[in-house]
């Protein structure tokens, strides 16, 4: 069985749809960076339809013993044993992360609504991003980093959401990294678009928005790959485009 498929969403937008519980890892080269910015346009569709963002709510229940890592979503960058980005995993036990893994219908923040789908941890709405090393969540998890995938594309302002990360370090050999994630009123969403093109990513990455900081933390390895994984069975992750920009 295939792990993903390529689908023509619009004449100008061909997307990769990860099959249920499939992942994409895409290594990149960006040597000696001090300020590395990454961004990706994403959306959700149903398990059965390639362009169907309806009825995706789902809960993967934690019976109190925690859930393994593969029951949580991971969208961001990684390296050997390292992940930085968006996730509803908590750690610190590397094999059992606490809380239900959920996808809920939401407004553009952390309220009830029908315009967006919002992944979350059942224990706490704030658990939506982090830095992980050897399976353990390290550093603090700031408030206000929730991601919202369009459920009603017209109301959302587009069928795809752009998310991103800015990685900073003080010298090009350092493994001590801090990550900046756009934050505004319980939202890390950088843009919504019906034209999730490279030009839009480029524009968004050039001027980094006001952000919350994760870290600094000293990692066992420096991230060198994109990592996309979606754990739910009623929905699939669509990847429209992505990019890296070495600003320094």
């Amino acid at each position, binding site marked *: 069985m295939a792990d993903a498929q390529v689908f023509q969403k619009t004449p100008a937008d061909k997307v990769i749809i990860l099959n249920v*519980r499939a992942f994409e890892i895409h290594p990149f080269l960006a040597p000696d960076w001090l300020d590395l910015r990454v961004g990706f346009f994403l959306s959700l569709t149903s398990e059965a339809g390639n362009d169907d963002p309806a009825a995706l709510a789902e809960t993967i229940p934690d019976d109190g013993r925690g859930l393994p890592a593969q029951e949580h979503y991971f969208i961001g960058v990684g390296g050997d044993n390292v992940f930085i980005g968006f996730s509803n995993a908590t750690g610190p036990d590397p094999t059992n992360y606490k809380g239900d893994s959920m996808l809920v219908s939401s407004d553009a923040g952390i309220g009830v609504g029908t315009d967006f789908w919002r992944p979350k941890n059942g224990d706490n709405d704030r658990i939506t991003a982090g830095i992980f090393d050897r399976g353990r969540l390290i550093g603090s998890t700031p408030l206000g980093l929730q991601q919202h995938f369009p459920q009603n594309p017209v109301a959302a302002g587009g069928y795809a959401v752009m998310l991103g990360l800015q990685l900073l370090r003080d010298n090009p050999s350092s493994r001590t990294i801090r990550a900046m994630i756009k934050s505004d009123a319980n939202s890390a969403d950088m843009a919504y678009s019906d034209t999730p093109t490279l030009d839009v990513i480029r524009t968004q990455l050039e001027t980094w928005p006001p952000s919350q900081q994760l870290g600094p933390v000293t990692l066992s390895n420096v991230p060198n790959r994109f990592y996309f994984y979606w754990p739910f069975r009623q929905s699939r992750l669509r990847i429209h485009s992505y990019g890296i920009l070495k600003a320094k």
Partner: protein
Amino acid sequence: MLRLLKGIFGTVEAYALLDFEAVPIGDLTGTVQLGGEVDAGNCRFETAQFGSRT
């Protein structure tokens, strides 16, 4: 497109951007060279890998 982006970026040292317009419609499994990348400087994408969790 590449020349246009290089001109727009100006002071930016390096970038790599990828959409999937060059990827044929169909299934993807395992190791895949996606193609269609736009890059400049010393940033590049390598070969993508697809897989699944149980």
